[in-house]
């Protein structure tokens, strides 16, 4: 067994099944850790494979590695640190075009990257096909099809990670780019070395910045990434490497760089993905109905009525059993204490005080449990996002966006998580408004006491 565990960082867009994959590997061996100082969560777990222990880190979902938001900065810093040996970039294969943007950034970071194409079962259902020979050729990293839900490809993925841990650049990147119009003497070489090669104008700038960075910071790691980031006007990188770049940064190159990345992605997709158009039409039909201008709202009310029916009727039915168990427990404890010769005061304290008091509150548990289960289901099915759209008009009347409705909906269950959920709103004013309105959403407990 090696002395140093291999640390694998799981990165990917939100909702690409990262955590499902993480859980598939770690099982119950999961702990939640809070990042020191920042309110970004990362999860750590461990797994054993072929007598080696691997440390797995699940990072918050992100679309890019700029330093505009706290989460992105923290994710980036963590990946850049020596704590991570290999990055597993989890991508939703059914929406590859959107997911590859993060992948390209990850490759540019210069750490070993393995692309895990998740949700392959959905891809197959939709009749899509992905060319697994061409894709790694174009990206220069291993691409492994997996399905976290059906637990396929998991072993191959971890195997690839173990073998790929020292390889920063893939050996064979084959692009077939037209190079005649390029004046750049390194262009041919660039295309062999880097997956993402920009236009001459940008590449010239990158070269210039690279040599300048190397002159001032001779032991800089992955100078190309730093140069690209400075060209993108990244404040973090600029702050850490304070030089005079004003003569190189004569205009805003960030848009241009994003644009060229997406052009390259389009190229990759057109070469590697077949039958893309035949995408699930069925969800479009369901969507049509759920977000219908007239029917949308009644459907939402109907669904909420269903949720409350479940919460109160089924919850009360469970509650009946709960009370029977509680009664039985009280009797048993009283009997036990009496036979043990405990004083009347103590028996009263335990039976009438602790058991009756705590039990009285616990009887709400079935109701709340079912409500949160139903809300979680609505969230996972993607219906909540549709609700935000449906409620946008009504919420607009009180000056809030449809998004603010989601925390309020949680308020039916309990006010505390609802207030916490309001952090999804970016605007401080909207957040305050939502927080102040939320306590007026009647919670399940309130209904009880009414």
């Amino acid at each position, binding site marked *: 067994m090696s002395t140093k565990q291999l640390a694998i960082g799981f990165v990917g867009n939100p909702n690409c099944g990262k955590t499902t994959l993480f859980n598939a590997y770690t099982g119950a061996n999961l702990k939640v850790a809070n990042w020191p100082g920042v309110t970004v969560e990362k999860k750590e777990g461990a797994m054993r494979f072929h007598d080696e222990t691997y440390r797995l880190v699940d990072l918050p979902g992100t679309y890019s590695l700029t330093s505009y938001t706290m989460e992105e900065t923290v994710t980036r810093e963590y990946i850049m640190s020596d704590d991570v040996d290999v990055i597993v970039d989890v991508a939703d294969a059914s929406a590859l075009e959107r997911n590859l943007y993060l992948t390209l950034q990850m490759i540019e970071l210069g750490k070993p990257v393995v692309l895990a194409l998740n949700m392959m079962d959905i891809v197959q259902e939709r009749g899509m096909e992905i060319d697994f020979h061409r894709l790694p050729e174009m990206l220069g990293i291993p691409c492994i099809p997996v399905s976290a839900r059906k637990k396929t490809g998991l072993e191959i993925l971890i195997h690839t990670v173990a073998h790929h841990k020292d390889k920063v650049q893939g050996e064979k990147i084959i692009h077939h780019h037209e190079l005649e119009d390029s004046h750049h003497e390194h262009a041919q070489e660039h295309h062999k070395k880097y997956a993402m090669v920009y236009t001459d104008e940008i590449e010239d700038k990158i070269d210039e910045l690279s040599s300048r960075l190397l002159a001032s910071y001779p032991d800089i790691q992955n100078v190309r990434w730093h140069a690209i980031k400075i060209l993108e006007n990244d404040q973090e990188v600029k702050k850490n490497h304070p030089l005079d770049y004003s003569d190189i940064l004569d205009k805003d190159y960030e848009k241009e760089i994003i644009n060229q990345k*997406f052009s390259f992605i389009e190229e990759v997709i057109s070469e590697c993905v077949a039958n893309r158009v035949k995408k699930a039409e069925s969800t479009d039909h369901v*969507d049509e109905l759920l977000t219908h201008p007239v029917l949308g709202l009644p459907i939402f009310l109907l669904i909420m009525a269903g949720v409350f029916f479940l919460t109160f009727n089924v919850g009360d039915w469970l509650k009946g059993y709960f009370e029977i168990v509680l009664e039985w427990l009280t009797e048993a404890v009283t009997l036990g204490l009496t036979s043990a010769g405990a004083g009347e005061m103590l028996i009263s304290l335990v039976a009438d005080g602790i058991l009756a008091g705590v039990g009285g509150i616990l009887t709400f548990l079935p109701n709340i449990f079912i409500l949160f289960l139903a809300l979680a289901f609505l969230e996972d099915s993607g219906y909540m996002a549709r609700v935000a759209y449906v409620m946008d008009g009504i919420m607009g009347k009180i000056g809030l966006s449809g998004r603010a409705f989601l925390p309020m909906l949680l308020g039916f269950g309990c006010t505390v998580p609802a207030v916490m959920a309001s952090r999804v709103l970016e605007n401080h004013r909207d957040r305050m408004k939502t927080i102040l309105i939320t306590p007026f959403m009647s919670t399940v407990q309130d209904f009880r006491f009414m």
Partner: protein
Amino acid sequence: MKLYEGQKGSTLQVVHMDLPLQLERRLEVLGMLEGTKITVVNRKKKGAMIIKIRGTRFAVGQNITEYVEVKEV
């Protein structure tokens, strides 16, 4: 024309975005750039829309659709 004027089912191309920098960058990393083609999946009278960008559906509010200049393709 502005994005919110787009009819349901139409395909439009982004010409220009005039949004707060933070929001604009967010949209860009999601794949909505100048020149990107988007499809209007659904729309409301007030300007909220469901649009499809590169195969993914997004719900965007009036505060976005009013400030995105598009042209029909």
